[in-house]
């Protein structure tokens, strides 16, 4: 199967959709630069178009059961570049489209140009950055060339960093700068790894690399460098220092995209690197090391989340913890590779990624609405919010279900599958970590809920009552995370379409 996929160097029907997915947001960016005042309208018009393209890619891959391929300029690798969407890419693209569109509708009205006033920079930049993130994420999921992916990754970083400091206060600029410095180190390490791979194997095409890379030291060093670089961008413990101030400092719609989507882009690349580009290079020791960092992230992130005094920071620390679960994919996927349980591991891992994206986006939106209503987000002073602003609190609670892993939610199924896989693979210590992580998540979600649902000493005066439209958008995103738990697991076959055999059922 790998041979077949690698040798496919002709554009498949519908392959042009992949170009559209990357280029549509770019068209929006260029138009916004020219027609500055209309940026919001341009973005809102492009949302349904981009969504339709993502849905078309999803449907095509699902129906045909084969990956979509587009050979850029008709030049086949190793000279040319191929865009390729397998089942996983299609699912990622769909998730990105849903969250970006929801964020755009959520942010509608927050970043507007006042009539008859000088053009406000923040209002223009937000929409441009949102579209840029969309384009970069699509480029990452369909990219099949390590250097092309480097450029996509940089685009993602350059779009994400300014989003942090849209408010322009010294604290947020500092957070953005710290984020950027971590990201720069990450990108240059990635590039160093890429040049080593090119030097050794003469290609950067993932499919070609997967057949040429052996267990040589140069491949191991390159993979290690690239992984460290990507870990810095994914904010895995101990490279997470930049994340809480950055994600907490951005405006609510920005945080939703940063926490829900942006860090998933670099995680996706780590998986592409180890399981697609260099299958067979991943040793159990390396996989266990990654999972150990993940476990440390879960414990450390959750405990710090428990100790936060501000809602947005609590949610940001929870992101650090939830990222940790994703790294259990490496030892479990490796340990169970070639058995029938392997599919369950991957389904669990990807479900964790998707449900966290929805849950965390919804949570940041809810936190934004609460902060807007109260004028602050201090957890100690949330008493009575449950009564004054019930919908954001329901959203927060529903998203919390997924983070804790309580049914019915995508997080429950994801963590359940990972738990069972850990037991099956005789790696019970990861099962224990998943359980403890769930308890701690329950702790930090309930701290907020307990405060918010308690009655206030004096009647709560809302500074502004949140608009119903925005409340419903946040609720819908949270419901997506819940609904993911009800999707029949058989449909996870989609995620296996066009994946290399090491990820499916084949050699160990």
């Amino acid at each position, binding site marked *: 199967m790998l041979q077949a996929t690698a040798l496919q160097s002709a554009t498949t029907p519908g392959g042009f959709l992949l170009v559209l997915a990357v280029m549509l947001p770019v068209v929006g960016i260029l138009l916004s630069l020219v027609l500055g005042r209309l940026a919001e309208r341009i973005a809102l018009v492009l949302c349904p178009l981009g969504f339709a393209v993502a849905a078309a890619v999803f449907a095509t891959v699902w129906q045909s059961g084969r990956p979509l391929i587009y050979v850029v300029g008709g030049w086949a690798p190793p000279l040319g570049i191929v865009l390729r969407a397998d089942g996983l890419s299609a699912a990622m693209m769909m998730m990105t489209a849903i969250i970006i569109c929801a964020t755009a509708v959520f942010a509608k009205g927050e970043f507007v140009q006042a009539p008859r006033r000088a053009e406000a920079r923040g209002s223009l930049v937000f929409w441009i950055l949102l579209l840029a993130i969309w384009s970069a994420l699509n480029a990452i999921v369909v990219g099949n060339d390590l*250097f092309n992916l*480097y*450029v996509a990754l*940089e685009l993602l*970083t*350059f779009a994400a*960093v*300014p989003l942090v*400091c849209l408010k*322009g*206060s*010294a*604290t947020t*600029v*500092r*957070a*953005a*700068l*710290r984020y*950027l*410095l971590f990201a*720069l*180190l990450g*990108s*240059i390490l990635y*590039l*160093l790894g890429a*040049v*080593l791979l*090119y*030097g050794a194997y*003469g290609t950067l095409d993932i499919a070609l690399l997967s057949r040429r890379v052996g267990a040589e030291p140069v491949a191991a060093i390159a993979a290690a460098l690239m992984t460290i670089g990507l870990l810095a961008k994914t904010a895995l413990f101990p490279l997470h*220092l930049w994340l*809480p*101030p950055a994600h*907490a400092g951005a405006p609510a719609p920005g945080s939703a995209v940063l926490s829900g989507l942006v860090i998933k882009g670099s995680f996706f690349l780590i998986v592409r690197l180890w399981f697609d580009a260099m299958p067979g290079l991943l040793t159990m020791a390396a996989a266990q090391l990654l999972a150990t960092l993940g476990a440390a992230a879960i414990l450390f992130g959750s405990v710090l989340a428990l100790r936060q005094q501000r809602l947005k*920071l609590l949610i940001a620390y929870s992101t650090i913890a939830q990222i940790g679960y994703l790294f259990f994919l490496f030892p479990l996927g490796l340990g169970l590779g070639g058995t029938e349980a392997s599919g369950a591991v991957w389904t669990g891992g990807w479900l964790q990624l998707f449900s966290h994206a929805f849950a965390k986006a919804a949570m940041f939106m809810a936190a934004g609405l609460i902060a807007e209503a109260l004028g602050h987000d201090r957890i100690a002073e949330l008493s009575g919010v449950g009564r004054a602003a019930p919908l954001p609190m329901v959203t927060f609670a529903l998203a919390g279900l997924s983070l804790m892993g309580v049914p019915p939610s995508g997080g429950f199924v994801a963590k359940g599958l990972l738990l069972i896989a850990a037991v099956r693979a005789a790696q019970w210590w990861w099962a224990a970590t998943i359980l403890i992580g769930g308890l701690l998540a329950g702790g930090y979600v309930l701290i907020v809920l307990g405060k918010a649902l308690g009655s206030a000493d004096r009647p709560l005066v809302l500074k502004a009552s949140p608009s119903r439209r925005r409340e419903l958008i946040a609720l819908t995103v949270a419901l997506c995370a819940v609904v993911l738990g009800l999707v029949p697991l058989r449909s996870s076959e989609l995620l296996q379409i066009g994946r290399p055999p090491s990820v499916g059922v084949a050699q160990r």
Partner: protein
Amino acid sequence: MTSTDIFALCATSLVGLGLFGIITNPQPLRKIVAFNVIGNGVFLLFGVVAHRGAAAGLGADPVPQALVITGIVVAFSATALAVALLLRLAKATHLLTLEADDGSDGDLS
């Protein structure tokens, strides 16, 4: 030792020096400079790879040269963005550090 080897060693030491700088220096400006030092090391490495991989009668493998141009553009924009943020920070706080002077985000890191 051929000239390619010397260039390769230079590239490696640039990367090493830069890494040392980016990790040990607390000041953001120095970190940005160190990032550029690593970057130059990596670009030199592209040159080495291009020279070593020269095949089919070409003077050098053209692919790494194409990559290096893109890499330089990306590194340049990254540096520009970082310096812009740093200038903004300096304007707001009259400081060039990442540590908050008033401790307002001391609990953030």
